[in-house]
């Protein structure tokens, strides 16, 4: 197998190139137990039921602050999407998608005959309605922080491997300390502070949680300024402006699934993973035929090569 050597060496070089790590001191995010179904080789699958639940979580929880400006309502009913239905190959005809779109009022791109803006219920062709009219409004409503657009959030986190970004969303959403873990006390000067205690058998330090931000070990940041304890062993993670969003029972799933924190985190990560790359179903279904074709072609060429060179010493 001498001919494989250049390839192996090349791949080795790539592996070394891939060690770039941008997140500063955040805990490594983990995929759910058993891994993501869409990350399986040779043909991963999205879980449509889970995506539908995930959309419900997005709609009822995330959407009040986070936009998804690259998505249109029709995307929900396209092949591979959460509400795709064989009966409606054109997503614009899908009644579920139409109903979802109609819940939102949007401004029509064309004004009326007097030049005044026209407001109407959205249709599947419209893009997801933005929660805020502009960045300033978004910041004003969130204590100065800008909630990021979630269209490609799963591609913008992790290291680019399939499921990296979904694992980040999943880990972050269920990574907040529980309600009991965040304690509060009154300081001698009368101020109330929130803090977390970390122990390693015995208490090793306290992390003060400043007002308006929330600790999460999976969020890239720096805990050093808030940490009282050995600075060599500061906790992972950082503080973000979004509090824990998914306590048990935050949404009531229409399909009766119990809405635990882990379940909602899983579902919304699945939905956002689809949203970041909605054509992944086509990609994954084309993958295996292409690989088989190329492998067969290479076998054919290998024997052609052997036959053509059979009488030539080389």
């Amino acid at each position, binding site marked *: 197998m001498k001919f494989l050597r250049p390839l192996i060496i090349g791949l080795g*070089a790539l592996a070394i*190139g891939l060690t770039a790590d941008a997140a500063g001191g955040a805990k490594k995010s983990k995929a759910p137990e058993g891994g993501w179904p869409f990350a399986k080789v040779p043909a991963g699958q999205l879980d449509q039921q889970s995506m539908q639940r995930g959309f419900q979580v997005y709609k009822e929880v995330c959407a009040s602050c986070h936009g998804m400006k690259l998505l249109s309502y029709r995307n929900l009913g396209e092949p591979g999407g959460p509400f795709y239905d064989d009966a409606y190959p054109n997503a614009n005809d899908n009644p579920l998608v139409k109903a979802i779109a109609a819940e939102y009022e949007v401004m029509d791109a064309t004004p009326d005959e007097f030049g005044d803006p026209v407001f109407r219920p959205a249709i599947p062709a419209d893009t997801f309605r933005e929660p805020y009219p502009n960045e300033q409004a978004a910041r004003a409503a969130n204590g100065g922080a800008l909630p990021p*657009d979630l269209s490609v959030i799963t591609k913008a986190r*992790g290291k680019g491997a399939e499921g990296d970004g979904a694992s980040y969303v999943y880990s972050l959403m269920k990574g907040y300390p529980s309600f009991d873990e965040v304690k509060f006390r009154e300081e001698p000067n009368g101020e109330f502070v929130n803090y977390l205690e970390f122990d390693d058998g015995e208490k090793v330090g306290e992390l003060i949680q400043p007002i308006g931000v929330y600790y999460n070990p999976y969020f890239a940041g720096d805990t050093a300024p808030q940490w009282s304890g050995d600075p060599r062993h500061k906790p992972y993670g950082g503080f973000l402006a979004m509090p824990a969003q998914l306590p048990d029972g935050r949404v009531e799933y229409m399909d009766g699934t119990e809405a635990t924190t882990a379940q909602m985190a899983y579902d919304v990560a699945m939905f956002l993973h689809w949203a970041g790359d909605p054509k992944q179903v086509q990609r994954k279904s084309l993958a295996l035929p292409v690989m088989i074709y190329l492998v067969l072609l290479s076998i054919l060429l290998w024997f052609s090569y052997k036959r053509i060179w059979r009488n030539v010493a080389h």
Partner: protein
Amino acid sequence: MSGHESTYEPKSGFTKWLDNRLPIVRLAHDSFVDFPTPKNLNYWYTFGGILAVCLVIQIITGVVLAMHYTATVDEAFGSVERIMRDVPYGWLIRNIHMVGASMFFLAVYVHMFRGLYYGSYKAPREVLWLLGCVIFLLMMATAFLGYMLPWGQMSLHGANVIINLFGAIPLVGESIQAWLMGGPSVGNQTLQRFFSLHYLLPFMIAGVVILHIWALHVPGNNNPTGQEVQDVEKDTVPFHPYYTVKDGFAIVVFLIIFAAFVFYAPNVLGHADNYIEANPLVTPAHIVPEWYLLPFYAILRAITFNIGPIDAKLLGVIFMFGSIAVLFALPWLDTSKVKSMRYRPVAKQFFFGFVVACLLLSWCGAENPDNPIIKMGEDKLIVTYTDAAGLEGSRVFEEYAPASQFREETVTAGGTASLGIQVAPAFRFLHLSQLMTLYYFAYFLIILPWLGLRERPKGEPDSIHQSILGNEAPAAAPAE
């Protein structure tokens, strides 16, 4: 190869007519069908064909992408996503183009290491090598320009870092910088000129590739023995079908790896931060170029000291460009008359050292230079204090408890104190990159010139056919 008789005979009336006016079919026949090619080329020699395929793939997918791409700062990011979402098979075209850039560089590096190992840059192939270096430079420029186009965070801030390098050049630096950016900062006008140039350069590459193949076909292929063809009958086979089928097989194996990335991990070779839309006000924590530029980035960052009047920044730029310039001088730096390192047992060791140095430089380029590789001792705690009497000082502790106690005692006594980490000495990525940069330049400027004069080559065959048929098979050949 030059001097071999053309065997093309036009058969039909039309081809006879055409051959008397524009012998293009004859040219193709002599270059790619009947071209005498050494019998003993191994799989390392298939990467030229693989690279031609890469260039064609990049140009075809790139032209289609340009039909849908919008080069403005407001719409570039969204338009790339729109291609992935709404253009039929746009996801496939874009993934191929994106992964294709990495595959192109993977192949070109193998191709270049092949040339270094078998001495393909030596007489009579110096011009062939120089043209190859020009292609490599153009490729790096094209890749850098293309990385800007999706207008993600790395696009913008990476472009900023590279353009700022030119600012280090004395006198004209700032003017060059403004000229590249088309204004005072990287903005819409920069994106538009980068798009224009990104579309132009691949065709310049294609032009130089034609020259590169021409310069190859005058002396003919080098081969693992380094011996020139002496007897066309005994030493060579016609290019077709012998090498079309061998290259074809290698190309398809390469495409399997290519497809594995396109279909199973299209984003793994890039950087996640580039899926965050560019924002000049937010700088990413670590700005890292694409993997294929990491060794040069590591060389740039390895220079942290001034030499005489030249400051570290300019010196880094000089070293980075020098690392490519030295490739152009290579045919005249290597003094050995023996081409192939198969017969240069000492030089071979240094060559593999050079490959390792390049890989380690890539690793250094990806990491923060201050990160330790080997720590010498544990980090300690240092309490810096001003006591009640106003005396300043610091004390070092191993354990946290006494350090914390000392700090509290100082504060209780009316002073101020703060606790920090005293970082243990370590062998850091910076040091590794400095060592490897030293080796990189020493390889070209000292080792190759010196070795050629001192070493004793071993077991060189007299001809290609002797190496194939004779008993003097060289030991420890890398392939075949």
